[in-house]
């Protein structure tokens, strides 16, 4: 088989680049523990309002004993509930979110805070916000005719 010298060089160069990229991302993942929001946990979406965690009275922001914060949200046609949440900056935040109806997307532009919300499953995202300010949650997955109108507010306050 004949492979030209220049081509061999290119093959090596690109292969090393690809492995380097894999290495960097692998380092972030395995060493710094930065992962996409995976959470294999099921829930009965049709009975969400009856569940202990996602019933109306349990939603919102809660402070935990260790100083961290848990946010429990429901994403439903066409809003995030409760519709305005306030979380402190520089504090570990755990978001738990579920949908009683169809697919939704949860995304806060400017904060890289995002997950899909899939009926039948509970999404969980961990974050820590470095800056204070007003942000917006946009639903970024097509969820029905009112999809465009599905957004709400997130305020990051001083600690």
């Amino acid at each position, binding site marked *: 088989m004949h492979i*030209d010298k220049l081509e061999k060089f290119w093959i090596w160069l690109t292969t090393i680049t690809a492995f380097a990229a894999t290495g960097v991302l*692998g380092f972030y993942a395995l060493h710094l523990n930065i*992962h996409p929001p995976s959470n294999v946990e*099921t829930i009965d979406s049709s009975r969400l309002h009856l569940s202990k965690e996602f019933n109306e009275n349990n939603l919102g922001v809660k402070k935990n004993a260790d100083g961290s914060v848990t946010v429990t949200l429901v994403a439903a046609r066409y809003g995030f509930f409760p519709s305005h949440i306030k979380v402190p900056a520089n504090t570990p935040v755990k978001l738990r979110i579920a949908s009683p*109806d169809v697919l939704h997307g949860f995304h806060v532009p400017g904060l890289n805070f995002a997950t*899909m919300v899939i009926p039948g499953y509970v999404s969980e995202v961990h974050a820590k916000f470095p800056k204070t300010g007003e942000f917006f949650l946009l*639903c*970024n997955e*097509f969820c029905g005719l009112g999809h*465009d109108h599905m957004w709400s507010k997130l305020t990051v306050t001083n600690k």
Partner: protein
Amino acid sequence: MEKMHGKNLILANMWVAFTFFMVAILLGVFQVLSRAGYVPGLQIPELYFGSVSTHGVIMGFVLTTFAIMGFGYFAAVNSLKMNIPHKWFGWTGFIIALTGTLMAASMLLSGQASVMYTFYPPLKAHPLFYAGAALLVVGSWFWAFHMIWMMNKWKKENPGETVPILMFGTVANAILWLFTSLGVTLEILFLLLPWSLGWIETVDVGLGRTLFSWTLHAIVYFWLIPAYLVLYAIVPKEAGGKLFCDEMARISLIMLMVISVPIGMHHLYMDPFQAAGWKLVHMVGTLLVALPTLFTGFTVLAGLEIAGRLAGGRGPFGWFFAVPWGKPVVLAGMLSLLMLTFGGFGGLVNASYSLNALVHNTQWITGHFHLIFAGTSIIMYFAFAYYMWPKVTGKELFSTKIALWQLWLWFIGMLTLTLPWHYLGMLGQPRRISSSPYPEVVREGWALQELGMFIGGVILMVSAVLFIYNLLRTHGNTISVAPAFNNVECLNPAARMPALLNGFGFWTVLIFFYLIVGYGYPVLQFFLMETHGVEPWGI
């Protein structure tokens, strides 16, 4: 006038592809207009989401599948210099696929299937939509088996000979398609169709999405491989050069075929129901599949350089100006590579396990796949049409000048459309919105980009009209040309191609095992844990 064997079958497939393409283009223009909000009365969600769904299904499934089938028959007849055995077999596939397309299209156009081309359960479409989509896929399997059959027949009749690269790649694509289309077919047959008919009450959305992701990545290579094949087998030849290295081309095609199927979970990075470890495994494959594309870029540019030097170009860059850019297929090759380069950078961001959160489901994604699909791939479909139409019809192309304008307009239009989209995505604009009724601070910086999107969309429509016009007029052209086709020559032809690079037996087994590794447990897990299905929802 000499008539090419298989002419009717090739042209029937091509015209179905391009007729639907034109419909989808018009829908696309409506969508950019609606999103930009220039005509407030036009912002009707029912219309917009119906339109997006139709545009996506037509461009992704109909245009591509039929054009690829037409391409495949052209490649087989010409590169193997062989007649199509049992043509009725190809016609059967064509009719099944067309029936399915018409079923799905009628549901889409009547607003009964506005569930996006990704199906999105628990949104429910009319059962005829799912059945139609399944038939389209089944019809294409006839084509895939026909390609494998023709290559094997030729090998039997020509023992020891090297399968021409055009046919080799076409069969690689057929095998890739058989494996990759299985995911969506399983989703339709076992989940969506019985569910939409009311035979089963609920579907597991996680399982449905996992099966769809199995199809969703490699389908992009199904669309892209014909474009690469034009770059490998037709562009260097038309430019007056040679294929730089036949073996490397084959290795790239095999890598695309083997690696691209079990990596679809990068579409699920943001989904909860798959463990992070699996996403990481799929990311490694995703980054590796960039390699054959990088090899392709090298080989094609080298082929063009050979052409430029043979034409008298000197020095490190002189050859570039000696390449015959006045030939549509050569020009398209260069424009395609440029868009592939831009799109490839964006793709690395999407593929990055931890960076994906920045762009997921934003307009960036729409920008990315329009560059790779509508840009890189479809411009080569145009180029291929310009190349093959005279050969198939025996009539000279109506206007080379219009063809060159058309290609430039497509390139410029695509960049005008997609660069603003990338930017909008970074600003956080979601994809698939019919309007943007957000607070002013959220919309900051969007207006100018949306203007770019609108202008880009209009340029693309003009380009598409020129394309169709040119092909239609070619049928009526009175100047005849001979349907001669010659396989590309290689700079250093292999005396005898190693069996591994001249057939697919070993590689097919390898895909099978890789697929089990990549998707075995992620699919199985839904049967091992207690899941809760979801009932159908309307839009």
